């Protein structure tokens, strides 16, 4: 797993600044094929910006992003999606006036490159997998928050990704809903899809991920087994100190 040739995703010395605010400082991060990596960190640590630089919504000032052994630093977001980099957004962005099925069909045709019946089958199976088949023909704008989050995931999966970036999919959900999502994310792991998961609901992460990384001030301050990272004094001070106050489940 440590062999660099097996890294599915690699960030090398990535730096990004917005004026005086630095969201990434010489940041290095690797994700192996099929691995599930959790990312924690206080608000403003640069987690979402990190995702934006991986998915291509944001371009780093310096450094490189490599995916499947290829430098994708200058590759546009839609090409990255076609290469197998799927993502969800923290605030779900459904195609509101399209049906759930059409939402997923967009990803199956443009992202995965399927046509006709193959596209319908891929989209249909993805809806089954994410538990969205029953609302397949509903307009996405009418969905509940949990359904929107599931749709985000379904759309990412329909691009046939090798890696999915999950941005706080558990945020705002009730405990039983979080448990449902955790089961779903675990099923991705079982099918060999690598996952990078940003989450404030730490117990959802620790129940799922192989590895945990903690981000603060645009740097990775801890990276390793979940238990080790959570026990790290820097992490406890930076992140858990705040989180314990707002999230009783952390302990």
């Amino acid at each position: 797993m440590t062999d660099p040739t097996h890294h599915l995703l690699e960030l090398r010395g990535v730096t990004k600044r917005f004026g005086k605010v630095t969201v990434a400082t010489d940041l290095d991060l690797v994700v192996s094929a099929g691995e599930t990596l959790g990312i924690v960190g206080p608000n403003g640590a640069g987690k979402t910006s990190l995702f934006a630089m991986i998915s291509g919504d944001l371009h780093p000032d310096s450094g490189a992003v490599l995916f499947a052994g290829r430098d994708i630093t200058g590759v546009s977001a839609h090409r990255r999606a076609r290469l197998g980099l799927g993502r969800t957004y923290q605030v779900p962005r459904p195609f509101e006036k399209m049906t759930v099925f059409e939402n997923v069909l967009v990803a199956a045709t443009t992202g995965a490159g399927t046509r006709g019946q193959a596209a319908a089958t891929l989209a249909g199976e993805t809806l089954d997998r994410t538990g969205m088949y029953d609302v397949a023909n509903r307009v996405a704008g009418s969905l509940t928050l949990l359904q929107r989050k599931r749709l985000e995931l379904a759309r990412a999966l329909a691009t046939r990704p090798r890696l999915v970036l999950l941005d706080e999919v558990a945020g705002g959900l009730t405990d039983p809903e979080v448990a449902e999502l955790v089961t779903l994310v675990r099923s991705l792991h079982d099918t060999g899809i690598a996952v990078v998961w940003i989450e404030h609901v730490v117990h959802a992460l620790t129940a799922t991920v192989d590895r945990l990384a903690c981000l603060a001030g645009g740097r990775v301050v801890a990276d390793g087994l979940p238990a080790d990272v959570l026990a790290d004094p820097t992490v406890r001070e930076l992140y858990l100190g705040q989180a314990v106050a707002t999230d009783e489940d952390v302990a």
Partner: protein
Amino acid sequence: MSTTRETAPRVSGGFRVRRDSRLSRYGMLGLVAVCIGLAGLPYVVYESVTSSLVTLFVLIAMASMWNLLAGFGGMASIGQQAYVGIGGYTVIWAADQGINPFLGIAVAALFSAVLAVPTSLLAFRLRGDYFAVGTWVIAEVYRLLVIKSDSLGGPSGRALTGLSDMGLTARNAATYWAALVVAVVCVAAGYLLLRGRVGLSLTAVRDDEIAARAAGVDVTTAKRIVYLVSAAGCGAAGGVVVVDALSIQPTAIFSVQWSAYMIFIVVIGGIGYLEGPLLGAVVFFALQQYLADYGTWYLILLGVVAAASAVWMPRGLWGQVVHRTGLRLFPVGYRLDRTDQQ
């Protein structure tokens, strides 16, 4: 515009996709019947009726194109008069080369699309409000270029030659049919574009550009396709305007009022619905016919209708119809069913 290929359920793999409902098939049949009826109109009504309908068809064509551009591509242009003007002048130029002006309308569509390529390279560097203003400026530049050209008649314009040997009745009928064909082709092109794979991407772009990109949609290419189609349609409409008027004047043909008409029609008809511009054009045309005598009050009333519609009916007239009845004349959606059900 055959839909039989798509209507047959595609069975295999446990899922099947349906594109249209019985309701939309009847709607489509009705629409085809209306077109056939309209095509026969010059044989049964006075020329005054058909010649006023030319205006309606031109409005339908232009508004359909603006709806594609703004309603699906998210490009709220106020510079589509650039292509109305280019199309108009192309017909004039084609007539000079001995090309029949009716054929010239097709040339106008083509040439407008060709000029839209470099124009889009420039305009696409702008976003939102800047895009809107930028397109207007580009249209003004085209107008000034034409005014500087002596062969195109300069600021006073030109008369259209090449139709003098046609009888008045025959010419009026031919103009009417040309306008009808342009309107039908514009609406049909929008429908076919949205029904295809590009349409799925475009509809996604309409709803959320960033999410569309993350799903793998090449947003810029999708937008460029729409921009070119929209330029071609407006060019053809401009060609019809010139054939109808038998003359051209740069300030009128490049007037921003064309864009104002398009926006008005699409907003009251329902932006982002293919049916919207049809309904909106009919309403606008009726207002124009009945209120034109009131001069300034007519314009004030148009403004009030547009503002009221934007505030209280943001989905437009067709949006209301869809909301209440679910009726779509142009089935561009996809419905998923299991093959083992029903």
